[in-house]
């Protein structure tokens, strides 16, 4: 009898969508390596694979780039940029997954809770008010954006905690309200922009870009994404439970209010870090969780790592497209995510609805 149950349990486990996750993760890992390699090879000038490897090997061993070769482009520009795309994509996939559970709404995205509006305001203020103001505060662009993110986080927190609940509706209302409020300031500042170059810089920021990638700016977002993944995985069962409803979660021994508060902090800080290095790149955080749920199911223990991997692959590829689609011009990455991502998501959801009848 016991043996029978074990066999049945094992068989059942094999058939379950979550059981595919190791294979999916392995495939995404390979895809990530290929995408990163392609992203480093291709661009305004294409670099042969062999040269890329030797440049990367030299860079890793700490050697100085050889002058007059493409070493410099590969090691100083393309590698950090490809890695930043992977880190930001992974982070957006994670935050999107967590925020959708936090507010129990599959249409939520990382920017719903107003954090990116604050970050954008900070960044735009730094650009428009100029190096003078930035220098005055001792802030770079990323730091200004992160300061803005923290400010909006504080405002949303103060609004959401009234009534003590951190209920999904309260969080969304506070996030949308504060977000709109801060966007008003941002738009005002854009109109005050001194010249075309400033306006261009602002627009690029608002639509998201990975152009600012450097080795020195990679550490903070990478650490934030790693810590965020750990913090969310530690709460994977709680995230599952709140999908069913707050009462169900309470009945399973989950302290729902505390969980929401913690999730709000984790997702806000991570969003703030991501937006401050890359601007608000749309659609990745909305699309990635959906696609991953369709493939590996909704249980967060497998969903979170898969969403991080898929987000990374997606953004590396999208950034490659953004750099190479037009001959002389780089597109903001957010434009490509929207142009490619929106139809993809609509197609997938439509097929899903048809299937359901």
């Amino acid at each position, binding site marked *: 009898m016991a043996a029978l149950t074990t066999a049945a349990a094992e068989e059942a486990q094999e058939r379950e969508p979550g059981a595919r996750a190791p294979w999916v993760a392995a495939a995404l890992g390979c895809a990530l390596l290929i995408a990163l390699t392609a992203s480093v090879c291709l661009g305004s000038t294409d670099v042969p694979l062999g040269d890329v490897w030797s440049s990367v090997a030299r860079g890793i061993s700490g050697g100085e780039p050889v002058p007059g070769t493409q070493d410099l482009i590969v090691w100083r520009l393309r590698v950090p940029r490809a890695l930043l795309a992977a880190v930001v994509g992974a982070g957006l996939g994670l935050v999107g997954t967590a925020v959708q559970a936090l507010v129990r709404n599959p249409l939520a995205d990382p920017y719903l809770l107003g954090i990116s509006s604050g970050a954008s305001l900070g960044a735009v203020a730094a650009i428009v008010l100029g190096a003078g103001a930035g220098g005055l505060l001792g802030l770079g662009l990323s730091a200004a954006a992160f300061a803005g993110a923290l400010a909006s986080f504080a405002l949303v927190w103060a609004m959401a905690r009234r009534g003590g609940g951190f209920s999904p509706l309260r969080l969304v209302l506070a996030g949308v309200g504060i977000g709109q409020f801060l966007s008003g300031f941002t738009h005002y500042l854009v109109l005050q922009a001194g010249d075309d170059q400033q306006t261009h810089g602002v627009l690029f920021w608002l639509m998201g870009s990975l152009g600012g990638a450097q080795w020195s700016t990679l550490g903070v977002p990478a650490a934030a994404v790693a810590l965020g993944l750990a913090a969310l995985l530690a709460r994977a069962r709680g995230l599952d439970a709140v*999908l069913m409803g707050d*009462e*169900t979660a*309470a*009945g399973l*021994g989950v302290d729902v209010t505390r969980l929401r508060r913690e999730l709000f902090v984790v997702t806000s800080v991570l969003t703030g870090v991501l937006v401050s290095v890359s601007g608000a790149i749309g659609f990745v955080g909305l699309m990635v969780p959906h696609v991953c749920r369709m493939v590996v199911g909704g249980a967060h223990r497998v969903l979170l790592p898969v969403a991080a991997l898929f987000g990374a692959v997606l953004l590396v590829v999208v950034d490659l497209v953004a750099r190479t689609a037009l001959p002389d011009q780089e597109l903001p990455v957010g434009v490509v995510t929207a142009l490619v991502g929106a139809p993809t998501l609509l197609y997938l959801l439509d097929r899903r609805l048809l299937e359901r009848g």
Partner: protein
Amino acid sequence: MGGMKIAIEDLEVSLSGRTVVSGVHLVAEEGEIAGLVGPNGSGKSTVLRTVYRYLRPHAGRVLVGGTDITSLTAAESARRVAALPQERGSDFELSVRAVVAMGRTPYKRAFAGEDRADAEIVAAALAGVGLAGAEKRRFSALSGGERQRVLLARALAQDPQVLVLDEPTNHLDVLHQVELLALLRAQRRTTLLSLHDLNAAASLCDRLHVLHEGALVASGPPREVLTPELLAGVFGVRAAVVDHPLTGDPLIAFDHRTPAAGAPRAVAEGATATA
């Protein structure tokens, strides 16, 4: 017979300053099925919510197995009490298996995966509700009856001493109601549930507790509690209580034409004047 005794003592609950339930005393003995009945808004769900710790009592205590549940951690109390609230979940591509596996939550530390014992418990729980083999199906694509059985399996996977169910037969057709009640009966585990359908309650429950406007107005075996006088006074309906021709359970035959004399509800135009 299994499970622990539930004892609710002098329970009072307030929601945003308004007292919703007060002075409620009730007991469900080990292995007993206790039913909460009463009109809409009488406080049934509120009482149940304090047992699965969604709400905190304002005054009074809830004892499970002799222990005040507020002295337990949330996980400890969830190992004793499994709940089936009226929530239906949302569409997040959860498989049936993932939903049932949630029942293991109170036994798991952060980062802990599922071990072989968990997998066996989950499989047994699904088999126990007649849904072995449905693991991979999407929870949101199930029929109402299947969904309730999956949620019951999730509660069983919690391996609780006590089951608490809020209107588990709501929105189910008659066959699925009968099947679900049979599953509950077969558990023989201490069960506290609310039911709208008084005939189902009379058939299933060892003991009934009648709530009216937040207070307990009667407790006892169904046959003693469900009198025409109580049905008129609490529910505002005229009814005869007879023996069920097939099962011998008390059968309440409602008069669907006439409210009881002095019924609190407005009488529709053209209805027989009663006041």
